[in-house]
């Protein structure tokens, strides 16, 4: 069965599931966006990289630490990366659109960072990943589909290990998200999260008609984290000592489901 070896979770509330408030709406205290600052820049290497790229790299680092894996252990063609986001490219695109909209010169050096593929690209460069590579765009239901895709790659022997990574940032497009507040309720909580998967098989693609308990809990504790929500649920389940996590996610009127095996609090799991 596909099992989770490690989880890294960063949200606007702090690092790990333990940093999540009991009730996100109350903790937000009227704030529409709970921002997440990236870690200090690593000098020249990330000089041009966007905030969401650096958050993605930080989430993978946290997941690897949790799994007890080094970067060298995942470099090369044996590790696949499945990235998902509903919003993170919006921040970089907004900056680029504003640059030429105001008559300024839109930089060619910045342009590659407007693609959704920029975040996993920086992760792949940082870790030397050359394995299977899928990038999905969508919210929580799409993250569940990302878990299914990662499990499919594992089961088909196309990788030995898979990372499922999600990053969501909102601050740069806060005004646009406010226009859709009837559809995406707040608070919007920026997040970056990653799970390290191993094993293979036993993961079926399923449609769900109702939210699993973890979906409801993750939403209540973290707030709206879009594609990161199932990863928040995963972190909460692991910290609660669960052996399996039944994950559901909803996006644009569709809800999908997947079940993953969890290790008994290992590595840095108990650290939360």
């Amino acid at each position: 069965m596909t099992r989770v070896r490690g989880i890294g979770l960063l949200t606007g509330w702090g690092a790990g599931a333990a940093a999540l408030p009991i009730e996100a709406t109350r903790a937000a205290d009227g704030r529409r966006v709970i921002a997440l600052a990236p870690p200090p820049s690593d000098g020249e290497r990330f000089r041009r990289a966007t905030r969401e790229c650096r958050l993605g790299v930080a989430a993978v680092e946290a997941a690897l630490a949790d799994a007890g894996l080094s970067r060298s252990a995942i470099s090369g063609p044996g590790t696949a990366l499945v990235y998902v986001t509903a919003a993170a490219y919006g921040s970089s695109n907004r900056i680029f659109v504003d640059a030429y909209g105001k008559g300024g010169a839109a930089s060619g050096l910045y342009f590659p960072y407007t693609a959704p593929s920029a975040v996993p690209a920086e992760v792949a460069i940082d870790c030397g990943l050359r394995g299977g590579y899928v990038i999905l765009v969508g919210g929580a239901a799409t993250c569940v589909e990302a878990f299914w895709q990662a499990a499919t790659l594992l089961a088909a022997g196309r990788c030995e290990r898979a990372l499922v990574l999600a990053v969501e940032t909102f601050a740069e497009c806060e005004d646009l998200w406010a226009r859709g507040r009837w559809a995406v309720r707040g608070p919007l909580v920026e997040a970056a999260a990653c799970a390290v998967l191993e094993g293979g098989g036993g993961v079926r693609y399923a449609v769900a008609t109702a939210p699993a308990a973890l979906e409801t809990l993750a939403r209540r504790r973290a707030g709206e984290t879009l594609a990161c929500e199932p990863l928040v649920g995963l972190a909460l389940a692991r910290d609660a000592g669960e052996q399996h996590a039944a994950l559901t996610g909803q996006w644009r009127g569709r809800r999908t489901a997947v079940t993953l095996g969890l290790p008994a609090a290992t590595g840095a799991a108990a650290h939360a």
Partner: protein
Amino acid sequence: MEDVLTPPVAIVAAGVATPLGLGLETFWSGLVTGVDGTSRIERFDVSGLRVGRGGEIKKLAALADAASMSCRASAMLLTAADDLLSHAALAADRGRIAVVLGTALGGVDELDRAIHAAPGPRAAAAGLYDSPAHALARRLDARGPVLTVSTACASGATAIGVGADLLSADAADLVVAGGYDILCRFVMRGFDALRSLTRDRVRPFDRRRSGLLLGEAAGLVLLARDTEARTPLGRLLGHASSSDGSHIAAPDADGRGLEHALRGAMATAGITATDVDLVSAHGTGTALNDRIETDVIKRVLGAHAYRVPMNSIKGALGHTMGAAATLEAIMCLLAARDGVVPCTVGYEEPDPACDLDYVPRAARHARTRISLSTSLGFGGCNAALVLEGGA
């Protein structure tokens, strides 16, 4: 790590909207006759750009349904879907029909509009990358999985691979898969700033190649489990993806990621180098891409690389980004159907660093059954498909 043979997937039918024409046969006729579909861009102001040419669809609004869509990407997709549906019906329970689309840009033109011109919530929602996929799913009444893939310019191939995986996982009975992208200010500004666009014509693998031109298009294929399709256009035998892990905008100089994807696709298809009858190259017409692709194909196919025709259709269409790989896959299947390999439009003078058979000057009669299609994208995205025509 051992690749498992994947069950073949039937490609039942295809539909396109391209600068060469709005239907499959017009597209194919343009490729076979070597038409250059690039022209001066007319839909938006390009006066401030170094290069104002591209593969623009001039007559999209001629279709009533498409004209009713304010989102050009969705309009192109619906046009391609109309074409696809003229070749095959979606005969399945609506909840078992999936849509998987690849795009490099999604609804970014709508985002631009939402920021500068349209203040409402609908405009903001349309700026999400996955809005066109959901618009297509609504129009098709497809109520199964709806996925948007964005592996930059490899998106159209990755989407077909994910679609095949959905069928293998029994998550759907039919999958409408493919890719799209439009020409818009956003992408023209970006590539112009990168100095990636050529003032010459696009010349894939040519000694004088100096860059790419962008194009807009939508390409769709209808996928079904192989056992359930009666007279398919062809089959997808294998697919794989990889990352370079080397550079944010340039391909890996040694093409290691691309090689891994190609070998992976061939392994899942259960074929060897000598089984390959045609290589459909990414072939952008940039100095680096074309040299790297040539080197990788020589490593993967060995001596057989010199015996296989390898074309690029980007000289005819421009680089249609998210649509490119799907259109190239469709080209492979049509080539097998008709026994004709389109030439590489714009290729005239050989480059010693690119020494394979790029099908110069004119289309060629050739019996091609198995094709290998390669795709690369920003951020080191690679994807490869193994296709069988005339199944």
